[in-house]
């Protein structure tokens, strides 16, 4: 790339140039290039060669800091779960919760939960994992310290009380229906109080200390993280000696690396590569819910976010509920899922393995196939006052990729489907950060925008309540609110499911969120050497990894 023709201000006197310039220049040049060449080929860390079993997982990145309380990035917490224990955690099969740092736990009354810690358990540096440490940790995450931002997600905690060395009580403000879910939410990871207070956050991020089954032996920020099994873990040393998270952003590079034996596992295998991988000896494809769903959010108000300033005179067609109903019936979810390449069509926004998702109703392929009804969509458009084939213009905003991938391709096909029933679609595709700043976070959704979200039930009712302050959900409905309130304080599981059933009726009817599909994670594993059962919650963490044939 030409930068400029004479940026250096050496002005060579042309008369002088006729004389020779010393031969040193030529030698220097040759020397420099030789040294560089030899250096380049010789240096470079050699790969570890020893008998330890080593599992390399290709992480698409980015990976965030080791201080687990300071961020919410799910895919970083996957990795942190190797290194940190929480009090309790979701079991791999999604059926309940398992003890980690706590040996056992019980509900004392509607608003008190008691945890019994393990005797003699320590962090990697020898600090005790006791009641005081638990109190310090939970108090840290539930208060705003610096820009540590998770405190509102822990606002259900009223107080943490140390009962004795190994017993700690957590009091909640009111009965908290999803206590176990929330107490194992991001930020639940226990870090050693004394060490942290001694070294501070920056140094902690360089040299973290946890109490999980693996210790960190090498850290290259957002590039490569090498973990080794910890001999003293309270529940026994894990089976695989070394687990490495290697950041490789491109799926195609991950596939090539897997075929070349550089890595042992990847997620999100691209469609055309699946056959080739499946046909390779020692590699097996696994599928499980990625716990991500794609939805289109419809604009239902003109007040929230930056919308009133950005588009002062714009009247979204989607303010009309009949337009929104036309949209939901115009979308062929089976087709969209096929375009995505790894997805199952859905109507409701909770993943199908949760009982709250009512898979028999909202994940049933036949019901969803019938839901796609262009004629019905046209009827709704007619009800909204649009003549046949003359539907309103919809602005559709989407990121290029989106969590779970394929956002752009899906949007292109969705636009075509909407145009088939009479809409005119103006599709804008942005890269992830531009999409976040210009559309999503600023509340500048004009008619429809993509939302790619996790699919747990715990926080969901909260999002649709009238007093929820984040933008884009403002389809305030008093009756729906009452159901949502009730869900959050109902501890009894069956009674809560009845409430959920009602909740979905509102969700479907009001059509603020148009659910498209649940993303399936297509993984490829080196089954020649390792055995792994994907977790129901979609977390790529490898505590339960084992060697093949053992």
């Amino acid at each position, binding site marked *: *790339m*030409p*930068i400029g023709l004479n*940026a*250096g*201000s*050496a*002005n*060579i006197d042309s008369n*002088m*140039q006729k004389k*020779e*310039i010393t*031969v*040193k*220049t*030529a030698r*220097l*040049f040759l020397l*420099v*290039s*030789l040294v*560089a*060449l030899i*250096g*380049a*080929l010789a*240096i*470079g860390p*050699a*790969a570890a060669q020893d008998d330890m079993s080593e599992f390399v997982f290709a992480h698409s990145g*980015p990976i965030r*800091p080791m201080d687990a309380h300071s*961020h919410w990035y799910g895919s970083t917490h996957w990795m942190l779960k190797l290194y940190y224990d929480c009090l309790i955690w979701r079991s791999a099969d999604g059926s309940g919760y398992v003890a980690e740092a706590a040996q056992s736990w019980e509900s004392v009354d509607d608003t008190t939960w008691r945890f019994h810690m393990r005797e003699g358990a320590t962090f990697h540096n020898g600090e005790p994992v006791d009641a005081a440490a638990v109190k310090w940790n939970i108090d840290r995450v539930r208060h705003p310290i*610096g*820009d540590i931002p998770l405190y*509102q997600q822990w606002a259900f905690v009223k107080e943490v009380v140390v009962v004795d060395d190994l017993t700690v009580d957590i009091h909640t403000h009111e009965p908290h229906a999803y206590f176990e879910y929330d107490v194992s939410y991001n930020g639940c990871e226990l870090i050693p109080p004394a060490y942290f207070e001694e070294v501070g956050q*920056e140094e902690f*991020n*360089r040299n973290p200390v946890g109490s999980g089954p693996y210790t960190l032996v090498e850290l*290259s920020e*957002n*590039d*490569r993280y090498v973990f080794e099994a910890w001999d003293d873990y309270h529940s026994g040393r894990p089976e695989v000696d070394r687990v490495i998270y290697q950041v*490789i952003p*491109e799926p195609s*590079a991950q596939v*090539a*690396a897997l*075929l*070349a034996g550089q890595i042992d596992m990847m997620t999100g295998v691209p469609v055309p590569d699946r056959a080739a991988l499946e046909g390779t000896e020692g590699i097996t494809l696994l599928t499980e819910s990625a716990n991500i769903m794609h939805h289109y959010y419809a604009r239902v108000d003109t007040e929230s976010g930056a919308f009133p300033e950005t588009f002062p005179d714009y009247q979204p067609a989607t303010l009309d509920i009949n337009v929104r109903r036309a949209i939901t019936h115009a979308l062929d979810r089976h087709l969209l899922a096929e375009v995505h390449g790894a997805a199952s069509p859905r109507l409701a926004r909770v993943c199908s393995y949760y009982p709250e998702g009512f898979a028999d109703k909202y994940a049933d392929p036949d019901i969803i196939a019938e839901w796609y009804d262009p004629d019905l969509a046209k009827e709704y458009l007619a009800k909204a006052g649009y003549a046949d084939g003359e539907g309103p213009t919809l602005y559709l905003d989407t990121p290029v990729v989106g969590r779970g991938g394929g956002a752009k391709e899906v949007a292109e096909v969705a636009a075509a489907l909407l145009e088939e029933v009479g809409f005119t679609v103006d599709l804008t595709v942005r*890269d*992830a*950060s531009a999409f976040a*700043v210009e559309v*999503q*976070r600023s509340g500048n959704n004009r008619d429809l925008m993509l*939302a790619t979200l996790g699919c747990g039930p715990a926080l969901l009712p909260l999002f649709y309540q009238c007093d929820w*302050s*984040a933008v884009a959900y403002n389809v305030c409905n008093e009756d729906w609110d009452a159901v949502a309130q009730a869900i959050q304080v109902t501890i009894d599981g069956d009674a809560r499911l009845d409430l959920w059933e009602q909740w979905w009726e509102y969700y479907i009817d009001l059509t603020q969120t148009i659910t498209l599909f649940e993303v399936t994670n297509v993984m490829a594993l080196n089954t020649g050497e390792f055995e792994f059962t994907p977790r129901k919650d979609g977390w790529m963490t490898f505590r339960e990894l084992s060697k093949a044939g053992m």
Partner: protein
Amino acid sequence: MRAFIVSRLLQLVVTMLIVSVVVFFILRLSGDPILVVAPDFFSEEQIEQMRKFWGFDRPLGEQYITFLRKAVTGDFGTSYLAKRPAMELVFERLGYSWLLAAAAAAIGLTVAVPLGILSALKRNSFLDLLITMLSSLGTAMPSFWLGLMLIIIFSVHLRLLPVFGALEPKAIIMPSVTLGVGMAARLSRMTRSAMLEVLNQDYVRTAHSKGLMQNTVVLRHALRNALIPIVTVFGLQLGWLLGGSVVVESVFSWPGLGRLMIDSISVRDNTVVQAGLIWFALSFILINYAIDVIYILLDPRIRFQ
């Protein structure tokens, strides 16, 4: 000589000041990055809290002064996302980028200079045409595309070279070749025309007429004089090399500064982007400064302004 060095140093400071202004204000064109950094479910209150913590609630001018005051002491702020000093992250990656740039420059030099000379000596021959064609091709090819094609051939089909990372010595081959080809192409074009110009000069013709052998003429007279423009272009090409490394590192998942920049830009981790940009600029300026100084050391007869 001393006056020259001092005045160039002063220029350097002024230039860096301008760089800092450009870098700082460009990164704030779209406001603060909190909206990207904060997760979906955050409330206005939480976002305001983060904004305050990072000082984005202060006037822009004040933010710049704070930035500058800290920057001169080497403190470029903390990465919003990694929660570690931005310069530390930059330095962590620097070694890899230098390694890659050095390997690419070595390839560029060892391939380009001889080819350029050959091309000039055999002007208008078939060989000249071939070299010119190849070097034009090298300039025209998008480097990232060349990288992808190399991956298809050497990693996917032949399984000879690793796809990503810098974990073994042979991992540097594909990225450095990808980066080196563009440089070699530009440099050989430059060498050719510099040589042609020198070959047409009176003193070379004189040397010829004195009956000196062709090779001696080329090496002793022409090449030495052609070196000056070649060195200048080499210095400028390093800028291209640094720029190219951004794209190439991202193709090969090479853990260098370029990939850090792309990763940070895409999530608007502005402190890291700032530190990286300033570092790019500083190394570019220093290298060209060093080249200027080398000129005088080698040949005091060169007049400087």
